[in-house]
């Protein structure tokens, strides 16, 4: 199968997955999401006002009709307006995605580089004191709650030492990237790097015990060449798989960071939307993030072939 057919087939397969995501979001919101009319009605509401608001929002219609409208909105990219602020949902997405990416891209890149680099090093010195200290540190780092990291680091590095701002965001991309983003990025990396490092170490160790490594060494190749040319290249596929699979979790972690550092990204928007039962915003963020995840997975699958020509598209 050539690459075009493969991509088309995968895109086609995304449709039922997307349908499943939409159905799940819809059901979850309607079962546990709360009725927004009670918030929008204010302090003194009566059944007539509630009914009028529900009618205006369309939540008085049957679930089938509501789901059909939702489906149309997703595929036409017209998700209406926020129930709580009346802002166009498309505008919400466009304006909030930038701050989220300003955090996400450095986190993923730096964390992957650090985790892979350290994993290669500790795998190389497997069983030594260094290996044990690094592994123990990873275990300790993994057992501390992300919230504790945020609270302590914000207080220590933001307030006490004054190395970073405690919170904030501006219109300037560079100021955000170089001034406001570093502390949240460091925090996200600290939390993500420990489990990744342990996992990548095991990938590399698996490869190091393969016959082809022994053969390469027997051929007299240098250790650096064996590690970087052979071992790392073969370990790249599971590493990339892990990076792609970990993206949703990284994003959820960033939601918390955005909230604590007052960064106007998708995560903070999502938290506020959930607390306001603002379904149009919740469904837009959830569904499009799901689509993004599926597209990234597809790209990763395509990359497998590029990394390892033995991989064939089926």
């Amino acid at each position: 199968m050539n690459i075009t057919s493969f991509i088309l087939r995968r895109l086609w397969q995304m449709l039922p997955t997307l349908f499943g995501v939409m159905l799940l979001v819809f059901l979850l919101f309607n079962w546990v999401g709360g009725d927004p009319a009670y918030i929008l009605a204010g302090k003194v509401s009566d059944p007539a006002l509630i009914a009028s608001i529900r009618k205006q929002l369309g939540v008085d219609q049957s679930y089938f009709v509501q789901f059909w409208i939702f489906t149309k909105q997703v595929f036409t990219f017209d998700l209406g307006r926020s129930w709580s602020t009346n802002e166009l949902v498309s505008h919400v997405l466009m304006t909030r995605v930038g701050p989220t990416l300003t955090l996400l891209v450095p986190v993923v890149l730096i964390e992957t580089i650090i985790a892979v680099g350290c994993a290669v090093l500790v795998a190389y010195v497997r069983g030594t004191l260094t290996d044990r200290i690094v592994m123990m540190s990873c275990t300790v780092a993994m057992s501390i709650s992300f919230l504790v990291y945020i609270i302590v680091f914000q207080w220590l590095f933001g307030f006490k030492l004054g190395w970073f701002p405690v919170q904030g965001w501006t219109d300037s991309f560079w100021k955000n990237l170089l001034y406001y983003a570093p502390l949240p990025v460091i925090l996200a990396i600290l939390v993500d790097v420990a489990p990744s490092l342990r996992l990548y170490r095991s990938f590399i160790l698996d490869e190091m015990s393969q016959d082809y490594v022994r053969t390469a060494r027997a051929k007299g190749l240098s250790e650096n060449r064996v590690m970087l040319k052979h071992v790392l290249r073969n370990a790249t596929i599971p590493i990339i798989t892990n990076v792609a699979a970990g993206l949703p979790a990284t994003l959820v972690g960033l939601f918390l960071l955005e909230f604590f550092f007052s960064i106007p990204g998708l995560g903070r928007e999502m938290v506020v939307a959930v607390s306001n039962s603002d379904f149009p915003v919740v469904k837009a963020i959830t569904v499009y993030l799901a689509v993004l995840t599926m597209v990234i997975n597809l790209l990763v699958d395509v990359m497998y072939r590029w990394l390892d020509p033995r991989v064939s598209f089926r």
Partner: protein
Amino acid sequence: MTRNLICKCCCVLLILFALSIQAAPLKVLRTSIIAAESGFDPQRISDLYSTDICWQIFDTVLGYDYLARPAKLIPNIVRELPVAEDGGRVYTFRVIPGIYFADDPAFKGKKRELVAKDLEYSIRRLRDPALNSPYSWLFENKIVGLDDLVEASKRKGKMDYDTPVKGLQLPDRYTLRITLKSPDYNFLYAFAMPQSAPVAREVIEAYADDTMAHPVGTGPFKLAEWVRKSKIVLVRNPNFRGAVLDTRYADMNNPWDREVVKSIGGKKLPLLDRVEIYPIEEEQPRYLAFLNKEFDVMDTLNQIYAAQVMQHGVVAPNIAKQGIRVFQEVEPEIIFDEFNMEDPVVGGYDAQHVALRRAIIMGHNRSQEAQVIFRNFALLEQSPIPPGVVGYDPTFNASSQQDYNPERAKALLDMFGYIDRDGDGYREQPDGSPLVITYLNRTSLQYTKQAELWTKSMKDIGIKLVNRQVQFTDMLRDEQAGKFMLAVSTWIADYPDAQNFLQLLYGPNTGSANRTRFKLPAYDRLYEEALKLPDSPERNRLYREMCRLVLAYAPWRFGVHRAYLHLVQPWVHGFDRNPISHDQYLYMDIDVAAQQAAIKH
């Protein structure tokens, strides 16, 4: 020759003057709010923080004196406070000529003067069925002919803004005469709320798709920049007529009042050029950013940080050392637990059920509630009326019925047959059926603690209490539908009159404001009589009688009035906090040199 010289000198002076103006640094106030705003359309908003911004952009028809305590109603954009005519049925508003809206493209390059028609338009708009305004109740069933218009509009599917309404008359360009269906001496308070602030019809129609993002008012500031849920920037409205602090009601024994009078007295307001407001939901970054001098004012500190800032009534040394001033106030709000009076177990007006409710109330340790949950930043409630509102009676004491007294609670339960029949440690109802109280509250740490205290307190007197913690919307739904036994509740004053609180127990308000579903004819009669009276000893007597009935029938467990701390940097002047009106930016000033020096340091 001499004339020429004088002309040249004048020119030089003018240039120097212009340069000095240009060189003056901008006075920028930076502050934060604890929840994201929703928008700035006065008739559409209901959340506290959007309302606070609207106080700055829009002029309310009436206002509150900045320093008078308790809050005192004053005219704002009208010549004088309307006098109740025809026994409280008619009110005439005379708008001051020469008040202008902030410039906006909707006005097509012309100055737009505020007229009485704008007041009338805003009243109609608040009742527009298509808007579903959260504050439509302010004018519901009040103005002659307005409800008929609303009903007709519902049928037509569109609000009619042009058909005359009998109760809304415009005898001239600057006069609005309102006729009510029945006497109401508290009617004027509705005009001191941003929700009734006049808006220009052409602005609303021009930005019909997103009126929340296009506030155009006659207030001291206008919206310059809005990054939703992230940054709100207000700048001085050049069309604002200006104001001067009224010092008549200042309490010169109060250091805050003294500072306000000294720093801004006699000056033309506003003094600030720009106000930057940042919504920050988490308390730690907000507090640390304030200590880092990133903010000039920090409104409403939560209890955890309040306990760090003030210990045993004394400002913590690290805060005092920085010159930070701490403003403490008890807001006109009540936190209480309400029984569902229609519930077969805890409701009812007979002696047995009243005894059960009283026992439950006395079995709850509310002193512990104030100490542990609110960390002593709270006053125990003595009546449904909080301090700082008209009708509050400081001598009214509810301790005999509401304070913790487990022995008396147990005795009451025993006396009315609520005893443990099966020996499981929990009491049953007099008919032998199980006695299980369900406590409805919302998911949050504070309410979890409240529920824990309830469960423990009830267990101590042998009552089984089940905690039902739900989402806020579900709680509102169940309360409105009467599907609860005991529920937590809060009410913050919309206006400083006891009636705003006592309406919560008025029978005809059942299903809306009266979620307790309390229906006592004697109470309702007193409430209706009080509505017909202006503020007077006679009305206060009626309020007191109503409070006595509440105490006797025990539909509520009185909780606390929370005390809040607000932090102010040393370079901020003119800070005070009116309990009702939040238009404080009009009165505040910044010592820019001190502010800049502190930031650099």
